[in-house]
């Protein structure tokens, strides 16, 4: 056993773990962070978009030296059928500001930088170390962790579980359930490299401007899912994700879906001639508010993806991870400053503070959306995109048909596909789940 005792052990060095370790170390706590990868970031996968506001709360001057790719000036939402996309694009010069709001990043590189900040704040970061078990005392209180290193038991007053969506420790110890196939999405992604001037020309960008494309429709073959394309400086992150339960049900392959998305006539020209340098996959928590497990216990708290904190509707996760990590650390610092023990009675402060933050407020707002999207995936991801495409083409193609008849044709295509009742019901359910 390592004789040295720590104030806190953080398991994992993703967004949540780094935020927690940094905050506790800055608050004067003696922190040990354990990471199984060869460096912090080497096991972490995300699209990825960084939300400046949540990072500013941790590192106000991050723009000076963080490895940022492009600041986002444009968002494109595409509804696709096999041969078309109907787009809603928003681009604004307002996003070209002194302190931009969102950036694309490359996680392995960004996390390495973030980890350096954690070390500079005084935390000890130990990589290439997989935590295998929680150590408990005779009362069942978590008093530390066991690792796969020799003599690998280490003790601390509090264990912060930032172990990611696959959080094995927590499920093995019975602190929370393993995510169900209908509560997580599997996303696969490729990194496509191209010269930066080609990327800028293809996406209509100047200097460090960036763009995000998010696409739904027949690309997910009727499953609940979404494709994404993010412009980085010299590469494009391109991927697609669908619910694990849908993959299981349909027998679709993730790489088959990815390749079909890449071959779509709206997508292929964007990546033509690129060199693919990496293929990755990751699970994304999709259960929303109703999937949040117990967040604290005797000697432990859980943060980030391990706590299923992900906003599916806005595709936000890393900011919820960072914020939950910071808030958990602030609660722990407050408990410690009062010389109180790290027991549920006092750790409840973490949940109270999290409930008051945007993290839980946003997830609560959309608490009914996952059920809606997951149970009628055919309608939202297959039928409607096809109908919209047909309507748009009917509207635009000039062929001598009187406009009044064109409108009737479009209306009829909607009512025959979903019936008036079905259309009304879908709209009503969507509005109710959204409000």
């Amino acid at each position: 056993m390592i004789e040295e005792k720590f104030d806190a052990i953080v398991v994992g060095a993703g967004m949540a773990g780094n935020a927690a370790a940094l905050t506790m170390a800055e608050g004067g706590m003696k922190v040990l962070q354990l990471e199984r990868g060869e460096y912090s970031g080497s096991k972490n996968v995300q699209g990825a978009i960084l939300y400046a506001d949540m990072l500013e709360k941790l590192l106000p001057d991050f723009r000076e030296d963080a490895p940022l790719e492009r600041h986002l000036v444009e968002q494109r939402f595409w509804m696709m059928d096999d041969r078309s996309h109907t787009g809603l694009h928003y681009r604004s010069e307002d996003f070209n500001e002194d302190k931009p709001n969102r950036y694309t990043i490359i996680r392995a590189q960004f996390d390495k930088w973030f980890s350096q900040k954690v070390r500079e704040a005084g935390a000890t970061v130990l990589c290439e170390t997989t935590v295998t078990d929680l150590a408990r005392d005779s009362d069942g209180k978590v008093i530390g962790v066991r690792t796969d290193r020799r003599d690998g038991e280490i003790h601390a007053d509090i264990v912060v579980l930032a172990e990611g969506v696959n959080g094995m420790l927590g499920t093995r110890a019975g602190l929370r359930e393993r995510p169900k196939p209908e509560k997580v999405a599997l996303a696969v992604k490729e990194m496509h490299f191209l010269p930066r001037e080609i990327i800028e020309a293809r996406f209509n960008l100047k200097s460090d401007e960036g763009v995000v494309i998010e696409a739904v429709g027949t690309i997910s073959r009727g499953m609940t899912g979404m494709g994404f394309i993010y412009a980085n400086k010299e590469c494009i992150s391109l991927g697609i994700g669908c619910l694990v339960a849908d993959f299981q049900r349909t027998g679709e392959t993730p790489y088959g879906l990815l390749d079909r998305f890449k071959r779509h006539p709206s997508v292929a020209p964007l990546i033509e001639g690129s060199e693919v340098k990496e293929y990755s996959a990751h699970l994304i928590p999709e259960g929303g508010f109703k999937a949040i497990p117990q967040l604290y216990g005797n000697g432990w708290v859980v943060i980030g993806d391990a706590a299923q904190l992900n906003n599916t509707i806005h595709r936000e996760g890393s900011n919820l991870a960072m914020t939950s990590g910071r808030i958990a650390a602030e609660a722990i610092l407050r408990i410690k400053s009062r010389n109180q023990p790290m027991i549920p009675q006092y750790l409840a402060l973490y949940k109270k503070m999290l409930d008051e933050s945007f993290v839980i407020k946003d997830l609560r707002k959309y608490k009914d959306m996952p059920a809606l999207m997951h149970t009628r995936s055919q309608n939202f991801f297959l039928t409607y995109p096809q109908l919209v495409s047909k309507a748009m083409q009917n509207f635009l193609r000039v062929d001598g048909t009187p406009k009044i008849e064109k409108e009737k044709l479009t209306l009829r295509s909607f009512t025959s596909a979903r019936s008036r009742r079905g259309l009304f019901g879908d709209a009503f359910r969507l509005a109710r789940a959204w409000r």
Partner: protein
Amino acid sequence: MSIELAMRVEDKLFNNRYLVDTGRPHIKVRPHAKPSPQLLSMLKACPARCYELSEQGQVEATVDGCIECGTCRVICEESGDIEWSYPRGGYGVLFKFG
């Protein structure tokens, strides 16, 4: 599945960096006579195509190309079809970009 598609997955994995923990696979399939529906679904759901059907009709896993997503854990761990853990510290996939 077409051979062409299968080849494409291997091409994708070829670009990744790995440190393989030889002789210590982090995922083990429980010996079985007839695979469960969960185990069979992994033949297609695994994004790295780590699961294959043997000539005798059993599902086997070769985890050298595993990208550690956890899909098989979510589908197959509860039924006891597989034993799933993380690779030892430092081993497994080493993402350059992530």
